[in-house]
């Protein structure tokens, strides 16, 4: 319990919210912090390990988990005490350490057409954009919006940049972008309004792999700058753009 109780950003007790007749939302705090997300991660692991009857899906998010359950088997009145008891034992649960993924990125040039705008907006050089963006270890708070799209925390304040005034109709897969205080990677080609600063040859979502998803909520991610030559070698013409 200590690990949770000492972190005053977490609620003392999880807060339950009803999400219809087959969804239960469990909130652990009301901010985006690594500490609250750590509780989310531990609870997700605890729920999966406990294999609670009737639980069909556990969806971890920034500061909550959504439990999708089978109403023929269980109900919030049965799930809530179970979750409270798991919460009480979280300190004793040893979730596996977060996995760190290194995402190679070719910054600027044809792959990052907006990098000069991001630099100018923040009154720094393009080299500073690359250094500041490739420096942190970003927590992956959740995945969503499109398959495998990571919602990352921890973007340097010196890189915050508003979205494009008019979104592009097609952003190539692998594009790395910035929108306000967020940074992320487009797993598939899609329309998008983020400022593009680079592109990765790594596929975050690939149906040819046994696990199509490279990233998981609760893990961490770093960006590593590569040259255009390295990008082309890695992509091998296979990147969907």
């Amino acid at each position: 319990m200590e690990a949770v109780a000492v972190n005053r950003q977490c609620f003392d007790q999880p807060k339950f919210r009803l999400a219809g007749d087959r969804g239960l939302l469990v909130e652990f705090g009301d901010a985006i912090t690594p500490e609250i997300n750590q509780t989310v991660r531990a609870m997700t692991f605890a729920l999966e390990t406990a294999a609670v009857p009737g639980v069909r899906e556990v969806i971890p998010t920034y500061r909550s988990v959504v439990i999708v359950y089978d109403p023929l088997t269980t109900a919030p009145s049965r799930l809530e005490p179970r979750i409270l008891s798991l919460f009480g034992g979280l300190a004793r649960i040893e979730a596996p350490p977060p996995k760190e993924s290194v995402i190679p990125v070719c910054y600027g040039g044809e792959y990052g057409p907006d990098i000069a705008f991001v630099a100018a907006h923040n009154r720094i050089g393009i080299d500073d954009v690359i250094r500041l963006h490739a420096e942190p270890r970003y927590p992956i708070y959740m995945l969503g919006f499109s398959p495998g799209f990571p919602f990352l925390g921890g973007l340097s304040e010196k890189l915050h940049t508003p979205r494009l005034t008019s979104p592009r109709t097609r952003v190539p897969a692998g594009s790395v972008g910035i929108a306000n205080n967020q940074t992320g990677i487009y797993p598939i080609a899609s329309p998008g309004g983020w400022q593009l600063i680079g592109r990765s040859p790594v596929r975050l979502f690939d149906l040819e792999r046994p696990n199509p998803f490279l990233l998981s909520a609760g893990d961490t991610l770093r960006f590593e700058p590569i040259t255009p030559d390295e990008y082309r070698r890695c992509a091998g013409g296979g990147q969907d753009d």
Partner: protein
Amino acid sequence: MTDIFEVLSPGAYTTVQDLGRFGWQRFGVPPSGMLDDFAGSIANMLVGNPNTAALLELTVSGPALKVLAPATIALTGADMSFSINAAPVSGWRTVPVKAGDTVSVGTAKSGCRGYLAVSQGIDVPLVMDSRSCYVGAAIGGFKGRPLQAGDCLRRCPGAIDHPARRVPEALVPAYPAEITLRAIPGPQDDFFDHGLDVFFNAWFTVSPQADRMGCRLQGPVISQIAAMPQSIISEPSLPGGVQIPQDGQPIILLCEQTVGGYTKIATVISSDIWRVAQALPGDRIRFERIGMDAAHAVFRSQASLLERIRHEMNLPEAEQRSRRDGPNPVAIDWNAPDVLDKLIHWLYQT
């Protein structure tokens, strides 16, 4: 694998769907699947398919298909004109077809989505354990997209010698232009006070912006408590969640949405999502508050109703005919809150 249909014209928006893709939302993949799983499940039952089989979901207007091999088909859901070689046939019953036939489905007279099932089910590759098409990410279904003229569909292997079956007329749902949806307040009902009264008392109109992601409504503005934040930290969206964006006009989230940051005043119960699936732009919707226990009772009723319809389907045609010749069953109001109980009662009393 047998080639079964060549698409002559695709209809407005025709996709391959099964019950959905579950367990992947944490990776950003929405469930997808047949939006009216009630009508879709019955279409599969009619042609003798397991409930996991894939079928075609038709939207507002249906396709014209050239039949390439003998099969049994059935159309359920929206009331769409339906013909084989230009001769009208009825929905909600099995229809045998042979190679060379042309199946045509026209525009919906009531309801919005039709379900065309073929014996053994449409065969497209399983993607993350489902055949459902999610057009947003171009996965599942036929090449991840709605059907186009010239596409060639296959069915899964297996015998197609199914008995003639039909759904008793009294069990065919009506799709009225005014519907009531039962909803459980939350997850963010505490962000509203007077707004909850407006939500549960007013009529809303379905806007033209209604698709598989969400159904936008127009009506009186639902305002939040002024002191509460206008948005929340993004969290998963589940089908039925009613999100209230800044303009105060509700959006019923459906099966192709994974996350959202708007507050959700209430959630339509899963047993009523099919009514949203069948609502057309211009139709009117009101919401009725329901508690968790009552919602779960409705869920159980709907599950057992499907089981009982399945039981009915397995009856030989003769026995069904004798039922139809029996006393005329009471007219069924599909919007009555206790409709399912009445149906079950009817099934056992008639």
